[in-house]
């Protein structure tokens, strides 16, 4: 990504070029650079408990291809993953497994609750003995995705929103302004 890139549809590199006689010096904050680098190489954990996982696979496949945004390195071990996409229903028996997977992921780690089940229990909210009414009862969630199941586009939007949140230093209020308001008005 070019440092002087002014394309409003692309996130610019977080810094400025200070011109000097021999070419210029990049002036920036280390935190911003780390967040920028982190957000562009999120490794998702291979984790899916029901039909949302099918949509997640579709988002990874050739038609949608989430590797365009830096998510292609799906890991089968939580020790190498940055983000866990909770793709499906979490039942009481699965809850300790999910907690353990999350605990095994190295910091910094991010969570996306994909679809109605992971968000609130969804269709299993009433009259079920076995379903956790929202994955945020077990682990903290960064981004929620609506849908049953959400389309791959919705998951991609959630992943890009997560990138915006990381670039903003994890501050959701700044993310909302930068990601949604600025883009809509530019």
């Amino acid at each position, binding site marked *: 990504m070019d440092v002087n890139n002014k394309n409003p549809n692309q996130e610019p590199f977080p810094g400025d070029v200070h011109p000097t006689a021999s070419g210029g010096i990049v002036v920036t904050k280390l935190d911003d650079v780390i967040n920028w680098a982190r957000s562009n190489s999120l490794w998702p954990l291979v984790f899916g408990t029901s039909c949302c996982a099918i949509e997640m696979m579709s988002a990874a496949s050739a038609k949608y291809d989430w590797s365009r945004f830096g998510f292609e390195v799906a890991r089968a071990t939580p020790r190498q993953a940055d983000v866990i996409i909770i793709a499906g229903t979490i039942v*009481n028996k699965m809850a300790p497994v999910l907690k353990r997977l999350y605990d095994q992921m190295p910091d910094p780690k991010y969570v996306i609750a994909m679809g109605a089940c992971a968000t609130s229990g969804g269709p299993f909210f*009433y*009259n079920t*003995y*076995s379903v956790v*009414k929202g994955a945020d009862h077990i682990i903290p969630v960064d981004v929620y995705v609506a849908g049953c199941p959400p389309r791959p586009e919705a998951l991609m939007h959630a992943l890009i929103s997560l990138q915006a949140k990381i670039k903003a230093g994890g501050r959701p209020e700044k993310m909302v302004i930068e990601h949604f308001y600025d883009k809509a008005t530019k």
Partner: protein
Amino acid sequence: MEREALQARISAINAAVTFEEGGEMLNAFVEPAECRDLLQTLHNMDDLAFDYMFCLTCVDWKTHLTMVYHLESTKHRHIVVIKSKLDRENPEIDTMSDIWRTAELLEREVYELFGVRFINHPDLRKLLLSDEWEGWPLRKDYEDPINMIKL
């Protein structure tokens, strides 16, 4: 075997069997005490040869339970559904696990979720729920104040 022929053939085996009108498949009702004999015959007869049980489940009708057996013949490609009404307070029926091996796990599942006791079942334990689980979760009157939000 066509549906009418199948119905006539089952009536010939057990005259007490009643049939349900409509439905995609032939539905036959039999008393639980005679259920095992009927299913054994359906499995063993060469012209019937129901060698494949593709579903075994139970339904809670609040007044009674109904066991449902879906059978198919891989030789003749005909399908029949056998149902049997059970007493809700004391649900008991003979196991089919020695006729179709698949019934062994399916009956364990029905046992843990509906509380039906399968007589002569080789290993009638809970399948997925923990051993200390109390109650039958798929019965309509099941209550769980901790995990369940009633509508």
